[in-house]
């Protein structure tokens, strides 16, 4: 059983839902990212997604785009992020996932990537621009190295594809709450509940909802029907607002704690 599977098993037993936090690795710098991961674990985050910055993040809205740009300018790369995970693993116990566009991993070398990622303690991998049929080799490498490949289902995914994707998905299924890019939204999409109900009928794997989730009432709505929620841009936005402040890490911790406790 992988660390992510254990996490969902434990949450289910405790009748709890997963709070998954996304932050861009290396924003504003890797040292801060490291401190943030520890703080978020302390505040009760269940799983952390670390965004690998990419020059052309086509699934991301302005908040994460800007964070990625700054992170890249600071010299962040996949190698350094893997090193950071290795160091973090000394004290961090919760599952850590990498969210990366395909090209940085392809360029790094898939074999080398999975070997290092698995050895350094990465638990899951999310690739927003990779439909599963496009790289079967990557899927089998992830299985071999015990890294959960987390796949997307979106509001436009057909029933046939939902079956196909949920069959291949590991860890949890990432349901995209809306047609669009990442970023804070006022309210959730109206067909969310209906779509999630349909997915529920097709698969028993855990389903978590991301994209646009930023408010306590969003979480309450999602927790009613899904196994967890993913909050990204709202946290990264908060980091942006507190750049340069000495208590940035504490402030982000407080922000996330308030969200979790709703």
């Amino acid at each position, binding site marked *: 059983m992988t660390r992510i599977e254990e996490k969902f098993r434990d949450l289910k037993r405790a009748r709890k839902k997963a709070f998954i936090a996304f932050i861009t690795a290396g924003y504003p710098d890797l040292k801060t990212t490291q401190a943030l991961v520890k703080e978020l674990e302390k505040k009760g985050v269940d799983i952390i997604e670390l965004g690998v910055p*990419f*020059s*052309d*993040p*086509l*699934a*991301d*809205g302005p908040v994460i*785009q800007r964070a990625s*740009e700054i992170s*890249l300018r600071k010299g962040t*790369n*996949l*190698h350094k992020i893997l090193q950071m995970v290795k160091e973090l693993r000394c004290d961090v116990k919760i599952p850590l996932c990498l969210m990366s*566009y*395909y*090209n*940085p*991993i*392809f*360029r*790094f070398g898939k074999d080398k990537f999975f070997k290092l990622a698995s050895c350094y303690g990465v638990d899951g991998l999310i690739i*927003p*621009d*990779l*439909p599963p*049929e*496009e790289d079967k080799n990557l899927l089998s490498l992830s299985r071999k190295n015990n890294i959960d490949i987390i*796949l*997307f*289902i*979106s*509001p*436009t*995914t*057909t029933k046939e*594809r939902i079956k196909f*994707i949920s069959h291949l998905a590991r860890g949890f299924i990432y349901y*995209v709450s809306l*047609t*669009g*890019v990442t970023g804070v939204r006022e309210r959730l999409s109206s067909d969310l509940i209906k779509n999630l109900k349909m997915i529920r009928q097709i698969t028993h794997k855990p389903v978590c909802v991301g994209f646009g989730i930023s408010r306590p009432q969003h979480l309450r709505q999602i927790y009613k029907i899904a196994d967890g929620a993913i909050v990204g841009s709202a946290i990264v936005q908060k980091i942006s607002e507190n750049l340069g402040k000495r208590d940035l890490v504490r402030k982000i911790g407080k922000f996330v704690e308030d969200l979790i406790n709703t």
Partner: protein
Amino acid sequence: MSLPDKTGHFNGFGGRYVPETLIYALDELTQEYEKAKRDKSFRQELDYYLRNYAGRPTPLYLAKNLSNYLGKARIYLKREDLLHTGAHKINNTLGQIILAKRMKKTRIIAETGAGQHGVATATVAAMFGLKCDIYMGAVDMERQKINVFRMKLLGARVIPVHSGSKTLKDALTEALRDWVTNVRNTHYIIGSVAGPHPYPAMVRDFQAIIGKETKQQIKELENRLPDYLVACVGGGSNAMGLFYPFFKNREVKFIGVEAAGEGLSSNRHAATLVKGSIGVLHGSKSKLLQDKFGQVNIAHSIAAGLDYPGVGPEHTYYQKIGRAKYVAVTDKEALEGFKLLSITEGIIPALEPAHAIFYLKKLVPKVKKNSIIIVCLSGRGDKDVHIVSEFMRL
């Protein structure tokens, strides 16, 4: 076997590296396109507009003065510059807008670099009465002001893109973001043989009219096939359009001319096939300009239409199997080509095909006597006159 295969790959290149949300739209487009291809009424409608609206067929013109000046070879120009809107781009936008109508989409989006594809898209959107938004890098908007004005005049909204290098690459990324968001009512008209499947194959097929006409015309004029086909390559649509119908004629050599910008060793160039490496950008696997961490480099060329760090996957395939040769020509040399064609033939080319024109100076001395060389003159130079005037004293 004809390529791409069912999954949209050219021997491993191409494919669909896109967010899940777009898969349904790409499936829908593939199905609709396959259906349309076999549908006589679609072909008739497209043919009607290509003839009566765009101005096809375009002449295959023997450039006598240029041939005499360079010696040895007979040089023909495929005059795509004479088309409505001034470039080959309209061949593709007409095809795609008719498809969009068939799919009952109410809104069109497109990316543009030099503005030629943007203008060609805004033009057909105006004619077919669809709402149209064009994404354009802020840097490109500055250097192609006239085309920005033309698009607005045609009723399109031009949305400036301020992220990244503020050029074509970023306009494409931003257009893809728009499409992910508005996928249900919007059709995205990609302007080159790039992007996820089915775009590389579909745009190639719409542009293949260039090569089909050329083949027929050269047979009539010379009673034989040409020895060389030469075309500039940014994303690669005019080159693929010219090359593709000759693919099986092994005796016809293909030469794609990329932009070497300020020089291949300067890091300020757009020579993706000559200097790039395999990677994934904008939905397909092909060659691209990238650093060792897989971050995409900023391309540079004096020609906004070549200023792109990626290239269509079928070109990467042609290069790999040795079917086409790819070379690069600098900004300075392109300006020389620009001047050369203007002076010898009275034709002011766009800066993009000016790269191909200049390459003739290198190619002709090496060919056999009486060789036939066909250059795709993909667009006219009106849009570039103000840029060139900054570099040239007359």
